[in-house]
């Protein structure tokens, strides 16, 4: 029995990534990181800002996501997200850009607790990449 399953990442503009030979995916779910292996029970969850790690035969890939939903069903993992960036493509400039916009958001007086939590999370993740 192979230990592989397929993953698809879509953002509103296009299908971002699709792979058939994935052995494990680690996603930053709202209540903590989840690692998903083959034959995981069907699950729906949503994501907080963080890093998605995809382990496959061809190696390991990491992506930064802003938010998203995941659905795992019949060994198909779908990740819907509005903003996703490949860590490989993220240079210093881009990182500081995201960081700056998050910091500015955080300064706004009208944000609520949940938004604040998400933004804090975002900053933490971004700083950890740096």
């Amino acid at each position, binding site marked *: 029995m192979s230990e592989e399953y397929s993953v698809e990442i879509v953002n509103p503009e296009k299908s971002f990534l699709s792979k058939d030979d994935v052995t494990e995916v680690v996603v930053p779910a709202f209540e903590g990181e989840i690692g998903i292996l083959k034959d995981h*029970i069907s699950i*729906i969850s949503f994501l907080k800002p963080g890093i998605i790690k995809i382990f496959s035969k061809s190696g390991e890939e990491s992506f930064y996501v802003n938010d998203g*939903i995941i659905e795992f069903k019949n060994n198909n993992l779908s990740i819907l997200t509005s903003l996703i960036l490949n860590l490989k493509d993220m240079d210093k400039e881009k990182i500081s850009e995201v960081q700056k916009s998050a910091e500015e958001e955080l300064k706004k007086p009208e944000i609520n607790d949940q938004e604040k939590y998400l933004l804090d999370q975002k900053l933490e993740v971004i700083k950890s990449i740096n």
Partner: protein
Amino acid sequence: MASLDDLKKRISSVKSTQKITKAMKMVAAAKLRRAQESAEKGRPYSDKMNSIILNLSNGISDIENAPKLLSGNGEDKVHLCVVMTSDRGLCGGFNTNIIKKAKQYFQKVLDEGKTLKIITVGAKGYDQLKRLYGDNIIERISFKDSKNVNYFDADKVGKIVIEKFEKKEFDVCAIFYNQFKNVITQIPQEQQIIPLKTSEKEENSSEDNYEFEPEEDEILSNLLPKNISTQIFKAMLENSASEQGSRMSAMDNATRNAGEMVDKLTIEYNRSRQAAITKELIEIISGAESL
């Protein structure tokens, strides 16, 4: 009858118009391909989103406590209509068709004695609606500056809608846009997004048991606002493909018409030139004869 000079001027002016329409057609064709591509690429996202929401809403046990975005707030008094049109003109019946569809809906709402509120997206919709429904328009949004349709624009519209819903400014929300079928046909669509209409019942494997993290309702209440933005984004993509398609066929027609007109005018020009020559000849001959 127009003089030769006038005809000549008209011919050259029609010809230059034809040049413009031809160029616009080419540009629209190029843009259409891109818009169509992005509309197709955008489909998986909204389809997936839809199926997840369907799965979730099937899993919800008590409808009473379902999020309001899904089931509505139980009232049906104030209707909000988001009319999505283009920012530019010269695209055939594109905007008119949407407006026509929207006006039917407006009339129905007003006839039933309900309150109507309108948000226009795109400059042309506002221009066409401001005379009749100026008082009903509460917001006008235009994305003239952004070159391509992008998700963040859609998200902005979505956030406005949700904010208004949370302030209880309306009960039912519908969006109007053109669905792209092919270059010649675009179908004006009316789609209700709040409360969400789950028209297609999931037949297959709805007894699939999902594990939810966190709880269903929490996921749903997080997901539904996103879904609204997604639906609006989808509408924007369809709209931009339709706009280019519509413009392309309109400009194609215009080019053809201009061609016909040039032919007609050229014949008229040649005839009157011939007539002038004949007249001159007669004058010379009769002048010579009388000597």
